[in-house]
């Protein structure tokens, strides 16, 4: 067994992405959405889960793109895929039970893991309107298990979400099963401060791990209900050196995991820069895939 070498320097987003990557296991099928979840799934595939298959909402299964990922449904996703088909088939495969694991994001979450991805405040005149369900409700309803990526803020961790877009354990207990939902429900919540799991009986969320430098008290302050705790709260495993290196190949300018978008939006130089990034990312990712035998 090789020794694990942890990264010395990494950002919070990289820590979170590494934690999300560990939610995937080898030989699983994953249904993932846009942005950091896809980066995390790719990191998993390029490290501990080489036989992880990634399916995305556009209709593609098993893509192995060698170019910068700009969108869950951009042309890159088709590259070297096992299959390119319809969007509804991929969602249908999920409802049938073919997808083992998913990752979603959200604007709010409550103690039973229900997620709001639609609107903060009054639905009819929201204070903040966000994108809407997209595939999140479907992942939450049907995937084998799923994890949620969240920013840890008190207004986002609430007793009850303003709008229940994605069913977690609903009102807890067996409410989810009674509702007729085929999927297994939420498995973890990875935030800017820690990692949460769910009680198997009650379906209530509890704090399992804190990120390095964060205390359970600090987390509790940023949760809007009386948060339960694991008997012993661990520390989030830092990203390995390899994970971070891979992230920086996949997203070399921090489009998702950093602030790379600003430079690229520059009217004068943004386009040339972008063209350069696309070509460079191809070379770097091709080399990475070659090393990994993928």
């Amino acid at each position, binding site marked *: 067994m090789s020794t694990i070498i942890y990264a010395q320097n990494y950002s919070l987003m990289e820590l979170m992405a590494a934690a999300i990557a560990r939610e995937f296991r080898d030989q699983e099928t994953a249904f993932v959405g846009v942005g950091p979840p896809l980066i995390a799934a790719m990191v998993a595939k390029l490290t501990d889960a080489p036989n992880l298959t990634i399916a995305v909402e556009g209709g593609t299964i098993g893509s192995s793109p060698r170019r910068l990922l700009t969108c869950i449904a951009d042309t890159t996703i088709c590259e070297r895929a096992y299959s390119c088909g*319809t969007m509804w088939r991929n969602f249908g495969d999920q409802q049938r039970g073919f997808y083992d694991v998913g990752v979603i994001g959200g604007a709010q979450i409550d103690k039973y893991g229900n997620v709001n991805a639609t609107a903060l405040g009054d639905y009819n005149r929201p204070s903040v309107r966000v994108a809407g369900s997209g595939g999140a409700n479907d992942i939450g*309803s049907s995937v084998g298990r799923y994890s949620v990526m969240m920013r840890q803020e008190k207004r986002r961790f609430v007793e009850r979400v303003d709008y229940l877009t994605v069913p977690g354990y609903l009102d807890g207990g067996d409410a989810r099963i009674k509702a007729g939902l085929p999927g297994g429900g939420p498995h973890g919540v990875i935030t800017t401060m820690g990692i949460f799991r769910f009680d198997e009986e009650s379906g209530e969320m509890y704090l399992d791990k804190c990120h390095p430098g964060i205390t359970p008290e600090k987390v509790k302050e940023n949760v809007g209900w009386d948060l339960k705790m694991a008997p012993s709260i661990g520390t989030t495993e830092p990203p390995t050196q390899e994970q971070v290196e891979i992230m920086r190949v996949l997203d070399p300018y921090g489009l998702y995991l950093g602030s790379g978008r600003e430079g690229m939006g520059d009217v004068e130089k943004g386009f040339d820069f972008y063209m350069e990034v696309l070509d460079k990312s191809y070379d770097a990712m091709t080399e990475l895939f070659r090393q990994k035998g993928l």
Partner: protein
Amino acid sequence: MKKLSKPAVNKVTTLKEAVNRFVHDGSYVSFGGIGDRTPTAAVHEVARQQKKGLRLASDTSVSYVHDSILIGLGLVESFEIAYNWGGIWGPDAVYRRALEKGIPKPIKLEEYSNFAMGMRLLAGSLGIPFMPVKSLLGSDIPVHNTRIKFMNDPYGGEPVALVPAANPEVAFIHVQRCDVMGNAHILGHLGNDDSLARAARNVVITTEEIVPTDEIRRNPNLTVIPYYCVDAVVKVPFASHGRGCPYYYSMDVPFGLQLAEQWGTEAGFNRWAEEWIFKVDDWDGYCRKIGWERLTRLAEVERRHQQYGEAR
């Protein structure tokens, strides 16, 4: 019974003519694609012709190149939608202004999930009035959308949600290649365009290339849309600019980031629309304004890294 099948004739026309003929004030319209292959040229033409009171239905609407343009111009009455966002380009300020503040005017929203919208279009394509799904159960989506109904499965007794078929009056779909009759090959992921083409009453195809019918016949398994669904065929290269078109050109990420900045204020959006939609005559004018060199580079970078029929 009104004949739904369209004839096997040359249907090549202009986008101006197609929009004028099929879209009217109050029309129920859907723009296809999924992340890429967005029929952006068609969206611009509908905007340019100032069709009003539109009722739009989308699955995933990509900000900056899709329905939000029409919402921002105040041309939209209602919107059936699962997801509307800018992805890497960031949140959609136009959509937020419309929903949070009713600017430029309030729109009636009817929300679904991606799968539910896909099933609505599938039902519409199959000529059935509804489809059962296991999504939506237990969520608040049906609380605010009473067209979602519930029943117990008459076989096993378990609860299912029902969603109504969607049959838009007009659909715009962008493809890589089709023949003059409208037999269309789509390469890469298909989104829900197979269903949308069949669910809609009238279908306008914009295409990167028009190819001989023999080219279609060579690969009949790639034909996603048969000609009998199609009313009009318009050759519009780079019709998805901003987003990509698999095997033809890549996304233009910097362009979208600049748009996101301009759309940040109502005045900024209006200036953008004036400059990029109303002050150009058509998509060719838009392309000249973007610059053919830039477009060519987006095509080159795509083809350098990925060609259909290859696995590097």
